[in-house]
């Protein structure tokens, strides 16, 4: 059985000496990106006041994302809607792409979850700096007191790493179990496991989005100038 921790190139691109290996997960990722971008472009091309059925579905989706952001963090959803919503939709479709026969979800290989976690790590810095400036963002590391600076810096790395391992481990273990069961009894037996995989995939996509949202808002909140304690001291 192939190791789930390795990936093998699907084909090579470019001249003989500089051939770039293209992994299957990259092809699936680009296909999902094309589906998302084309779908969004087609849906928003003719927006009307009285929505059609497709537009109503899209509005319901955006409204749900907004409501979840508001419920989970209490922040206004507008600055984060695009990033978190896209993250959720991409991971959801990537996890569910295992339904298509012959497609391994890109989140079941190591690179895609690592890249997503790296994007979240960078976006925490981006939103933190945008919310409180460079000084405010850096001051957030010294909370609640300066002794915590090394621990806070370590935590900002380990939480991204744990997001990576969580997404990768969950999706990969689902695919791996289905592969093992399928090699023992391929007819109808893996179907309950596939249903469980759908649930896991949806929950993991939700959790990835919620956790990135929580980390971003905590960085923004910490970076805000604190007026209340200063007035208390003076």
């Amino acid at each position, binding site marked *: 059985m192939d190791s789930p921790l390795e990936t093998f190139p699907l084909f090579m691109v470019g001249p003989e000496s500089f051939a770039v290996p293209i992994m299957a997960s990259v092809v699936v990722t680009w296909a999902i990106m094309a589906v998302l971008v084309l779908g969004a472009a087609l849906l928003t091309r003719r927006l009307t006041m009285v929505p059609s059925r497709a537009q109503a579905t899209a509005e319901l989706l955006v409204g749900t994302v907004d409501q979840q952001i508001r419920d989970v963090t209490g922040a206004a959803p507008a600055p984060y809607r695009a990033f978190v919503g896209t993250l959720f939709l991409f991971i959801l479709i990537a996890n569910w792409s295992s339904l298509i026969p012959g497609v391994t979800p890109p989140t079941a290989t190591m690179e895609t979850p690592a890249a997503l976690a790296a994007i979240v790590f960078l976006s925490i810095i981006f939103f933190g700096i945008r919310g409180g400036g460079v000084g405010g963002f850096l001051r957030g590391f010294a909370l609640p007191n300066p002794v915590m600076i090394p621990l806070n810096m370590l935590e900002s790395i380990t939480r991204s790493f744990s997001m990576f391992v969580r997404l*990768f*481990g969950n999706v990969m273990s689902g695919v791996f179990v289905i592969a093992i069961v399928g090699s023992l009894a391929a007819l109808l037996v893996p179907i309950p496991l596939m249903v469980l995989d759908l649930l896991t995939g949806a929950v*993991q996509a939700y959790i990835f989005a919620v956790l990135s949202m929580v980390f971003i808002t905590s960085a923004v909140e910490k970076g805000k100038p604190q007026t209340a304690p200063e007035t208390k001291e003076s």
Partner: protein
Amino acid sequence: MDYVNIVSIFCAAFAVSFGALGPALAEGRAVAAAMDAIARQPEAANTISRTLFVGLAMIETTAIYCLVIALLLLFANPMMP
């Protein structure tokens, strides 16, 4: 069979089995507490179940870590010839 292979396979099995114990107990306690809370306050069921799902996934991560370690031992063991 090499000595390293036998030890790796045993350790992989031990990692998964003992790594599953703690999260299983913890998830049981978390679900029980959430059920209790929903029974007391049915109107807060939405918030509680959402928080429960996030918490369960975070607890489950420890078991997933053990699984990754086991797979590393089996498939990417640096000691294995």
